């Protein structure tokens, strides 16, 4: 035990080990934050997508990158009827409401999309709305009139007729005063208003309206093609990756070591069987088998973990441990243990395994990122866990949507950076540990 502590104390002399430990600490802190800030079920629900994200832009880059470049790309601006003043005139049988949604648009870039969400609680007769756009200069632009269902989404930026009238896509045309066909359109900053005139046919009915002007950038890590904030996946990917890597590494190294020790101790046919099984296992291709299981059964991350551990038990490491344990078997202290009547299990677990544990620690630490990348690899192949957000799944989505081709570099770089940090953190620590715990390397 003391030699371990000494070894750990020696770690401080290796700058790479300290850096690795810091990175790991950062990851663990992120994981704890993710688990506490977004509960497991919440994370699953969020990543399923849908209405939770309807206010976020599609494929928006991270805001801070744009600001670093000195860009002024638009962020998302919302205006809700809850904060608006509503004027109401009552006539015979009908009421006419005028809601004015006001919003300040102070960005240098155009928005990516304009949507209006309408909710109405009528009983039988649908209300009728008339939409007018008012620019900061007071110009008025008629956006159309329509009947409103219980929940309605008006995609103003996809209105073909409006585009024809403006000469630009609506999300550009509504925010510029440059006449079409002359030069690059320039943003007109200022306070815009959307006037919603509603004709209600029922006494109690009311209308809620939310205008969302989607930005070109969003948050720390941007959003994906389903408007999901990548922050959720990058945060929650951390505990998933760490848990998978750690459990797989523990599961494979510990069982491998115990089995190798048992083989060495019992010798004879037990040893021979273990050796043959190892040879068979080396021939089994791990990734294709995982792919096969993922396709035929389930892609649950826990099933994958189980298979990885089962296939990892008889790994090539057994041969290495065996070579290390063979001399240990002959050592006098084992003889002494036999003399006092220690059971086989006791000799294996208490005397043989601990003897080579220090050698195992570096291997163990360097194995963790291998499994983290394995999980990411499966996800990139489209066999990620069906419900959990992971880094690999983000990469898979990015690949499937040709993110690089479309220039959404952030979509690939975010998860890749997280994977890199994990890989580097553990590998740097592992290499330093290797030099400390493997005496033959120490002089080198």
């Amino acid at each position: 035990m003391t030699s371990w502590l000494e070894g750990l104390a020696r770690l401080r002399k290796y700058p790479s080990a300290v850096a690795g430990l810091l990175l790991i600490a950062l990851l663990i802190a992120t994981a704890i934050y993710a688990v506490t800030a977004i509960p497991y079920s919440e994370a699953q629900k969020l990543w399923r997508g849908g209405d939770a994200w309807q206010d976020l832009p599609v494929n928006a880059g991270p805001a801070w990158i744009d600001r670093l470049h000195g860009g002024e790309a638009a962020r998302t601006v919302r205006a809700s009827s809850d904060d608006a003043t509503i004027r109401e005139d009552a006539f015979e049988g009908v009421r006419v409401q005028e809601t004015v949604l006001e919003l300040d648009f102070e960005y240098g870039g155009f928005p990516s999309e304009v949507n209006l969400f309408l909710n109405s609680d009528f009983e039988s007769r649908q209300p009728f709305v008339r939409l007018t756009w008012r620019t900061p200069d007071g110009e008025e632009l008629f956006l159309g009139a329509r009947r409103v269902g219980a929940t309605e989404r008006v995609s103003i930026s996809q209105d073909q007729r409006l585009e024809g009238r403006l000469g630009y896509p609506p999300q550009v045309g509504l925010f510029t005063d440059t006449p079409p066909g002359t030069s690059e359109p320039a943003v007109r900053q200022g306070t815009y208003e959307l006037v919603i005139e509603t004709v209600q046919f029922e006494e109690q009915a009311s209308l809620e309206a939310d205008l969302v002007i989607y930005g070109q950038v969003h948050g720390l890590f941007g959003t994906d093609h389903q408007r999901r904030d990548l922050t959720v996946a990058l945060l929650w990917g951390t505990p998933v990756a760490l848990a998978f890597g750690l459990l797989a590494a523990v599961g494979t190294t510990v069982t491998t070591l115990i089995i190798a020790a048992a083989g060495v101790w019992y010798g004879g046919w037990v040893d021979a069987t273990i050796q043959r099984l190892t040879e068979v296992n080396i021939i089994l291709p791990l990734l294709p088998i995982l792919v096969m299981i993922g396709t035929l059964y389930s892609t649950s991350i826990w099933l994958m973990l189980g298979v990885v551990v089962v296939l990892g038990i008889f790994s090539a490491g057994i041969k290495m441990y065996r070579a290390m344990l063979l001399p240990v078997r002959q050592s006098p202290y084992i003889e002494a243990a036999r003399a006092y009547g220690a059971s086989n299990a006791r000799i294996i677990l208490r005397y043989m395994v601990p003897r080579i544990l220090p050698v195992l620690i570096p291997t163990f630490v360097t194995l963790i990122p291998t499994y983290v990348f394995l999980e990411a690899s499966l996800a990139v192949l489209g066999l990620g866990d069906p419900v959990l957000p992971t880094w690999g799944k983000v990469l898979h989505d990015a690949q499937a949507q040709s993110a690089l081709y479309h220039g959404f570099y952030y979509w690939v770089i975010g998860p890749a950076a997280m994977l890199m940090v994990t890989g580097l953190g553990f590998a740097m620590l592992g290499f330093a540990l290797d030099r400390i715990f493997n005496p033959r390397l120490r002089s080198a």
Partner: protein
Amino acid sequence: MANGNPEGRTAAALPGTGPAAAPASARRGLLRDVRHLALFTGKRLLALFLTVVVGVYLTIIIANMGGQVDELRMAQIQSEVAEQVRGDPAFHDLDSEERQELMQRQIDLEVERLRLDEPFIWRSFDYLRQAIFLDLGRAEEMHSDAGSRQVYNIIVERLPATLLLFGTANLLVFFVSVFAALSLSRRYGSRVDQGVIALAPSSAAPGWFYGIFLILIFAFIWPLLPSGGMVAVPPPEDPWAYAASVIRHMALPVGAMFISQIFISIYSWRTFFLIHSSEDYVEMARAKGLPDHLVEQRYILRPTLSPIVTSFLLMLIGLWSGAIILEQVFNWPGLGTLLFEAIGHRDTPVIIGSVVIFAYLLAATVFLLDFLYAILDPRVRIDGGSQ
């Protein structure tokens, strides 16, 4: 795999084509070596064949654990029979009940023919025999570029691309790292040496990971190289232009594998050479005043060759697995991409067939390196591998 034996003999016999005046004892020694080598090769072939059989059998068991393969076959039979009955004008006059009956009869016949009514354990041996002889069945959705629906043809069509890419990358990594490590072990402690040690952790990430960045940088930010594929579209007619195009397309994937492997390889071999260059016999050779390159070749490289070969084997095995994703990322038309497409189509026969082929590839790798090992390690040659 079966012709590994005669090849082995010729390879081992090559050194024997020396001067005819060689002493008779040397010839006897050579004969003994060849005999031992053949014996060893035979033993290893048999052992590896058995391991492949067990491995493939395990694959079949895993694949069919939930009766999945049986269900798929049943569905296939049903649809085939239905198609046949519907397409045959002779049965057009039958009413639906009679037709159902006829179909059921034919399905039963087919089930009996394929012995689907027997317990799985009996049939599993049947599948095993088919898989071992690479009779991998018909694909459900996919077909080869030549139009064949046979899984075997689909896979064989993709194999050369995979071998080309991975052969190139592995050999490159192997030779560069061994020679770099040799020269580093001479100058250990230098700036370059420390740089390599510091860079070694970068190998924690697999090749496809670096591939993403290489594509980002060299295909999109500075569009110098193609981002994926194997040749330009349409493929050039001139064979030289064709080769040049393939090389251009190979640059990024090979580069990605190279980056992910090279530092760890140099690091581990450097450490290895360092340990071995502090052996007494090496010190002795240095003390004798032998030139550096002779010490390196005869006293360091020669005794360490067999462990080097072993670690090369382990690296190869690791790379085969990584291949799938690397190919997919670079859209390289090899086995990995095939497997990926098969996942997309849920084409079970292709997936199982790929696993079998991968198992064979791994076994072939192991065999090749065992064989090299046998030639390199005098103990195997002289004792006939009876350790």
